[in-house]
């Protein structure tokens, strides 16, 4: 990695930050909130892209990792409630640290597993969330979940500063930081190792790369991102409950990175946008057609799932090499300068 790479990524980042900033002033509150949601999703899809696209590991458990981040933020934030704006930074950091630790544990197991076994294990992690929150009810308050005590935007921004704009700033600060760090990380040696392990484990081993360590690192990095994304989700929703992190969320995340184009961070951005835009689009659609409220509700909840599923299947079947070719062809794998 060279200084120039950092600079180049910064050069991408600053206009993006300016654009987001501008959008938060231009968009109505509801759209700004959606923009904030995209930012939170982006943290997760970017991390998952590194894991699945660059390292070839599948995870159906990222929804559970998000839940870990969200609950950690909620618990920390509630414990520190009312002491000022800085507590959000502390509780977000706590969320990332705790999720990273959980990710490390799962990653150690995952590094020894392949294909359907890995998928099955992470699936089990995903469905265990409600079980954990119910069993330790005194901490997590079961299905009801926790509300998150948050301070209003800093007074320095003005008394009438819209809360959605503040949320969007927070979530995009996290998202852009994640993108920046990941972009630098995958450009360097770590990224080369990830790809080497994905493409041919035996060859990577011969080249002196520790396959297990690389895989665990990939899992840890992507867990940290999921933790941050989960924390931001808690900030956006101002509450956490197991219902917000169903198995479907984990599947959605996977779909998003596959459809967005595995292996490129641009794809992760597309995936995050899709995760917000598609349900919104079906919402508008069901509003436009005149059906009974009950039918509209069914369509609204399920149409995005169906579209995601169909698109995913078509993408997978249309690509001759499946996932791997997505990861390889859609990413310009230039050598380091």
């Amino acid at each position: 990695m060279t200084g120039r790479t950092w600079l180049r990524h910064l050069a991408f980042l600053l206009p993006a930050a300016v654009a987001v900033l501008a959008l938060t002033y231009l968009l109505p509150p509801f759209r700004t909130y959606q923009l904030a949601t995209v930012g939170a999703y982006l943290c997760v899809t970017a991390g998952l892209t590194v894991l699945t696209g660059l390292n070839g590991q599948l995870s159906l458990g990222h929804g559970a990792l998000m839940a870990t981040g969200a609950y950690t933020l909620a618990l920390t934030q509630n414990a520190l409630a009312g002491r000022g704006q800085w507590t959000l930074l502390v509780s977000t950091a706590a969320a990332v640290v705790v999720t990273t630790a959980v990710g490390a544990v799962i990653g150690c197991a995952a590094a020894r597993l392949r294909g359907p076994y890995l998928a099955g294990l992470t699936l089990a992690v995903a469905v265990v969330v409600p079980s954990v929150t119910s069993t330790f009810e005194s901490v997590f308050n079961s299905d009801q979940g926790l509300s998150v005590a948050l301070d209003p935007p800093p007074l320095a921004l003005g008394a009438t500063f819209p809360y959605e704009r503040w949320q969007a700033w927070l979530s995009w600060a996290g998202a852009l930081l994640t993108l920046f760090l990941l972009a630098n990380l995958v450009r360097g040696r770590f990224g080369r190792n990830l790809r080497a392990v994905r493409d041919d484990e035996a060859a990577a081993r011969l080249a002196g790369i520790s396959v297990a360590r690389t895989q665990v690192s990939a899992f840890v990095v992507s867990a940290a991102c999921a933790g941050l994304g989960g924390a931001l989700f808690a900030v956006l929703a101002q509450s956490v409950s197991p219902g917000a992190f169903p198995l479907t969320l984990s599947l959605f995340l996977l779909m998003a990175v596959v459809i967005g184009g595995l292996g490129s961070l641009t794809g992760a951005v597309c995936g995050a946008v899709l995760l917000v835009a598609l349900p919104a689009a079906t919402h508008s659609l069901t509003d436009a057609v005149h059906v009974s409220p009950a039918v509209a509700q069914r369509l609204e909840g399920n149409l995005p799932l169906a579209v995601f599923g169909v698109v995913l299947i078509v993408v997978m079947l249309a690509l001759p090499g499946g996932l791997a070719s997505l990861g390889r062809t859609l990413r310009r794998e230039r050598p380091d300068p």
Partner: protein
Amino acid sequence: MERFLFLTFDGLSRGAVYAAFALALVLIWRAARIVNFAQGAMAVATAYAGYSVASATGSYWLGFAVAIVAGLLLGAAVERVVMRFVDHSSPLNGVVVALGLVLVIQAVLGMLYGNEYRPAAAPFSRSAFQVGGVALLSRFDLFVFAAVSAVVGLLGLLFTRTAVGLRMRAAAFAPDVSRLLGVPVAGMLTLGWALAAAVGSLAGLLVLPTELGLHPNAMDLVFVSSFTAAVVGGLDSAVGAVVGGLVVGLLLSFVSGYLGATVAPMAVLALLLVVLLGRPGGLFTRGRARAA
């Protein structure tokens, strides 16, 4: 002691269902080297079909038959239309496509039937007989045992005693050689999927009355438990799947009974983790890295 006996029988009854469902997973794994992550959703879909017919006609058994036949058809359709075209260079491809199917099936069910739980009828009483003052088994439990035993027995006969079974095994083990010997390999694969899906449907019909009822996501946890059962037995072993199913059923019953129902999924995760890390290859196959 009474409670222990009750939980044991309850566990065996649940385990029989997991065994059947795990067997369906093993069938497809052996035929196509794909773990059918969509099997739970497929089973729920056919259960809904049976439910519709049963409520329209008032006959549980007609609905039952429709669900099983729907399983056969859905399994064949999934193989013909989707799975056949999956690229097998990476085992992840099949998994991801199956997950896409899960989304589609659950979404369609949600649109057709809504996302509320609907009661799943049981054909026999679920209240347990008293044996010497101890509640042990219900008629429904006996039905579960009988149905699962029949399926296991029939599948065993099919694969070891019939020409079709021989063709199916040959097609799975050595596709090219089998084609040279005139075996319609693609057809055998479709048949394998159809059979597996029908067995999955049966398992769904047996398990849904004991859970919260019909719901598009109703089989998610059952899938995880049965996947664990299949892994405990080693994905390649039919006998292993049956034993694994009983092991998981007993574990879930004891954990639910003594520690609380909410702990059960964690116990399954723990068992899966222990088996995957401690005994790669399951308890019924010789040790091999889980690189498949």
